[in-house]
């Protein structure tokens, strides 16, 4: 059954609540498939009427998905700025879907109620089907998306070309339309200055990286999003398997960088971690970027067992709830910069304190 999306409350957050495999280094795994419908221009070129028809066609198909869990669907135009920013901070929508000031017409987000997957409508492509899981779970995440795609494909007329595969607005996505990405935390490689070598290596094997908020975003808090760069000429399992193997190697490098630091400069490392803890636990004002960088030291400290608390899951939640729209939502109104930084500091103090007991 498809429902009209109501309150956003805690939707789209399940990935943050699980540590998952290698959860101390791999924050989350994501797989998305780009699909378009035959007979309509791509969203960037489509008229408002065409975009409306695409939205309705997808809505109907979601409603018909036999045996599926319930799905909530929000139209971006029905949400206020803060609600759209909440979804953005939870990584279930892209900046393109919510727009800069005004949302584009008939842009929609469908979320499965069981949190297995989401679907953006009228983003760069008509459909961006994706699943996001906590930890290093690429293969399972791919299977979830694959299964839904098979069923949706029976209900929707996908644009498909015998030679080029699934057709997409941007030729960088054509073929499988698959982008698999893993959010990894690599402070060890950054601190030992080996990160550049590793990132170059990633580039040489057909992968690419970006910051936490997708294309063009800066790397903050030592969080790198590693993904496949090519989508055509390889099978889906091959793309997912290749990324899994390479990220597995990166995780190994990160672990060895960490143990080397622990061996060679244990005092410095411990001091860095505890200073970060001290600031986060007691500060009265925290900027968003400062918070991200200090959280990185905490995540490292927990992984190396230099700290007993907080839990990794708490850190993942702070990554989301410590962002501006979430703080404003909790405060029940807009916050100026100074108020926001104060609210952020108060929120982080409370979360860290509750994990201490």
């Amino acid at each position, binding site marked *: 059954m498809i429902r009209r999306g109501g309150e956003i409350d805690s939707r789209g957050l399940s990935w943050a609540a699980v540590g998952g495999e290698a959860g101390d280094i791999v924050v989350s795994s994501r797989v998305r498939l780009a699909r378009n419908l035959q007979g309509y221009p791509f969203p960037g*070129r489509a008229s408002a009427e065409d975009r409306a028809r695409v939205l309705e066609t997808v809505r109907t198909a979601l409603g018909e998905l036999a045996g599926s869990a319930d799905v909530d669907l929000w139209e971006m135009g029905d949400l206020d700025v803060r609600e759209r920013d909440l979804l953005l901070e939870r990584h279930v929508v892209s900046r393109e879907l919510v727009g800069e000031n005004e949302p584009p017409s008939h842009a929609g987000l469908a979320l499965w109620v069981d949190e297995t997957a989401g679907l953006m409508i009228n983003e760069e492509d008509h459909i961006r089907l994706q699943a996001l899981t906590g930890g290093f779970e690429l293969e399972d995440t791919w299977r979830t998306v*694959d299964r839904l795609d098979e069923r949706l494909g029976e209900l929707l007329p996908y644009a498909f070309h015998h*030679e080029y595969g*699934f057709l997409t607005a941007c030729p960088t996505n054509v*073929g499988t339309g698959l982008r698999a990405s893993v959010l990894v935390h690599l402070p060890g490689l950054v601190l030992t200055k080996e990160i550049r070598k590793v*990132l170059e290596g990633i580039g040489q094997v057909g992968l690419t990286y970006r910051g936490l908020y997708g294309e063009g975003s800066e790397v903050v808090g030592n969080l790198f999003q590693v993904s496949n*760069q090519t989508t*055509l*000429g390889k099978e*889906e399992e091959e793309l997912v398997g290749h990324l899994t193997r390479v990220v597995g190697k990166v995780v190994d490098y990160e672990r060895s960088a960490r143990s080397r630091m622990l061996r060679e400069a244990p005092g410095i490392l411990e001091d860095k971690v505890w200073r970060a803890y001290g600031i986060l636990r007691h500060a009265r004002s925290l900027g968003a970027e400062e918070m991200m960088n200090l959280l990185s030291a905490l995540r490292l400290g927990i992984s190396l067992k230099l700290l007993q608390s907080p839990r990794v899951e708490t850190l993942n939640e702070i990554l989301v709830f410590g962002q501006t729209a979430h703080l404003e939502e909790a405060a029940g109104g807009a916050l100026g910069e100074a108020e926001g930084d104060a609210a952020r500091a108060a929120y982080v103090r409370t979360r860290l304190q509750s994990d201490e007991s």
Partner: protein
Amino acid sequence: MLCEDCREREAELQLTAIIDGAMRTLDLCSVCASERGLSSSSSTPAPLADFLAQLGPEAASGGEGSDEPCPYCGITEADFRRTGRLGCPQCYAHFEPQLRSLLRRLHGSPQHVGKLYMSAGSEAGDRIARLSAMRRRLQRAVDTEDFELAAELRDRIHELEGAE
């Protein structure tokens, strides 16, 4: 063209920068570019439009409007080179000659080998192609001992065979 910084080596890169409040384009050699903190082997992802802009003279000219726009959505090759986006699924057939070499450069291959799609009204040939692709995936799932996927694929294959 010579590098605008050293005036000795051939320029290899173009840098667009805001200098004294005005946008300027500098042609630089790789040595001077790296002195300005730029790398010629950029490992950061560049948007497709930038990539297209580097693709040689026919791209740099931006198209003279001589080529036909896509009859379905009306975009021209120049539009595509500027935005990096096509207008509709039919653009792939309309701009095929240009796209084929672009796809090879972007992906290393212009031929899709992943999942096949069969719409409700598709021909028997499509179904056979799809079945053989699914059997290939099934074999690999068995090889990698991914039995959950294998079982699922087996069911899907049975369903498709039943529809024949």
